[in-house]
């Protein structure tokens, strides 16, 4: 799949933002006033910034408002609805702790749960795609939730939970790559099954239907850059979980180093999310004899 920057930024940043909101809503860290304002500002900037970024890849952004209408069937619509609901509910809690030194806890808890549901709906936009076997598995929502909870804990300065979640995330990320590598084969799709011509023998594309790449090939049969996948995986796994977890466990009080941990996690997250798209293979590639 084409790794569109707007979608990578959207899923990464809004995932972090809603992860941080989930921690803040549950009262971690227990802050009020100006400190609370800074935490909530960062969370809202990430969540809203990510959501705005997601509209940059739309062909007709003026119709984006209609995306809130189909929540009964569409995960993308559910994601839109849930993100707005979460942001509104947790805003009430944020106003309480920032301006009135009050904990209207019911709004905090509800907002946190809604934020987690939002992350789940984001993950299901990809997890529902039967056409992309690498995404179509139960680990996809687990992975997205772990990314948000671990990254959120890191930003919320929850040292021990963050370290443990980062380790868990690193392990789950490794296994989802490992399982994902075999997913296409496991699903059993081949050029023979796609064309129904397998009874005639081995099938190959003799002549492409068009002379240069079309929308489908650019969007779904993205093969550029996969050659560096193994290196990027190594970079991602070290930066997103190992480095930040080590810093948190060894030097939790050093603000400078914790800043490095956050930066390291961000770079690892972007690398892993780039791979999430670039390595995903769509079954339509079979009609082009390409993966």
């Amino acid at each position, binding site marked *: 799949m084409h790794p569109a920057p707007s979608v990578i930024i959207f899923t990464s940043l809004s995932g972090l933002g809603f992860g941080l909101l989930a921690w803040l809503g549950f009262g971690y860290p227990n802050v009020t006033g100006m400190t609370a304002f800074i935490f909530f500002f960062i969370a809202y900037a990430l969540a809203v910034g990510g959501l705005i970024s997601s509209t940059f*890849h739309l062909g007709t952004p003026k119709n984006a408002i209609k995306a809130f209408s189909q929540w009964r069937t*569409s995960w993308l619509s559910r994601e839109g609805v849930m993100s707005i609901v979460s942001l509104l509910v947790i805003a009430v809690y944020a106003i309480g702790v920032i301006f009135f030194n009050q904990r209207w806890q019911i709004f905090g808890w509800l907002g946190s749960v809604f934020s987690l549901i939002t992350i789940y709906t984001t993950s299901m936009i990809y997890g529902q795609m039967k056409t992309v076997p690498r995404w179509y598995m139960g680990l996809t929502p687990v992975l997205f939730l772990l990314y948000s909870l671990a990254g959120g804990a890191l930003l919320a300065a929850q040292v021990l939970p963050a370290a443990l979640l980062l380790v868990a995330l690193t392990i789950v990320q490794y296994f989802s790559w490992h399982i994902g590598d075999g997913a296409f084969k496991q699903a059993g799709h081949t050029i023979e099954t796609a064309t129904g011509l397998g009874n005639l023998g081995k099938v190959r594309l003799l002549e492409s239907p068009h002379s*240069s790449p079309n929308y489908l090939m650019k969007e779904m049969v993205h093969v550029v850059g996969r050659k560096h996948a193994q290196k990027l995986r190594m970079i991602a796994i070290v930066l997103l979980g190992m480095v930040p977890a080590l810093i948190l466990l060894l030097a939790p009080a050093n603000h400078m180093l914790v800043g490095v941990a956050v930066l390291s996690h961000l770079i690892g997250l972007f690398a892993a999310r780039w791979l999430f798209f670039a390595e995903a293979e769509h079954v339509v590639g079979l009609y082009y004899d390409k993966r």
Partner: protein
Amino acid sequence: MTALPNSTDKKLGLVIDLDTCVGCHACVISCKEWNTSNYGAPLSDMDAYGAEPDGTFLNRVHTFEAKAPEKPAQIVHFPKSCLHCEDAPCVTVCPTGASYKRTEDGIVLVNEADCMGCGLCAWACPYGAREMDKAEGVMKKCTLCVDRIYNENIPEEDRVPSCVKTCPAGARHFGDFADPESNVSILSAARGGIALMEDQGTKPVNRYLPPRPKADVTGTSQIDIPNPFLEPTPQKAGGFLGWLDNALEKI
């Protein structure tokens, strides 16, 4: 709502005969011509005269080669357009309600006034039946020529999809699969029509007729394919030519 109807009164669709298709791409062109000037936004071209021309098409013809060991390769031209699935995943993923499946005839359509061009429906389609129009920013797909098949302003014999009407080989057939006595139902049953990628669970309506096995001319068979009932001609020429042949061999 982008919920799918439980059932549709008709199941309009196409039978595509892979045995008959000659790969001329006439259906591709006639589809582009009809659909660029009728229903919805025109099908745009990008860089049409440049190095990498790209454009929106609702119908494409792939050409495959199938080869079994010790057998001659077989070429199969493979037209591909929307299969108007009963369980269309492109419809249910749509967040704006632009994609829908019609209850009366099962045609899957895009209401372009509602489409925000997110492309998720194209991701959900295993067949590559949907293409985003770059000029218009909305998703385009086969309408089964909904503006022809019910169009009382054109002669009755023309009320079929443009690709069906134009196919010089008669490889494309249009009809109602809900009616077991329809032309397409009978044709598909007689020729063992197949659905594409059934394991995706999309329940496509369109059917593909598999190519008939070709005669094997590479084997040890002595049958002369063009003249199977004639006596084999003598291998050696006689008379002067025979003498010349022998003499030249000996040099």
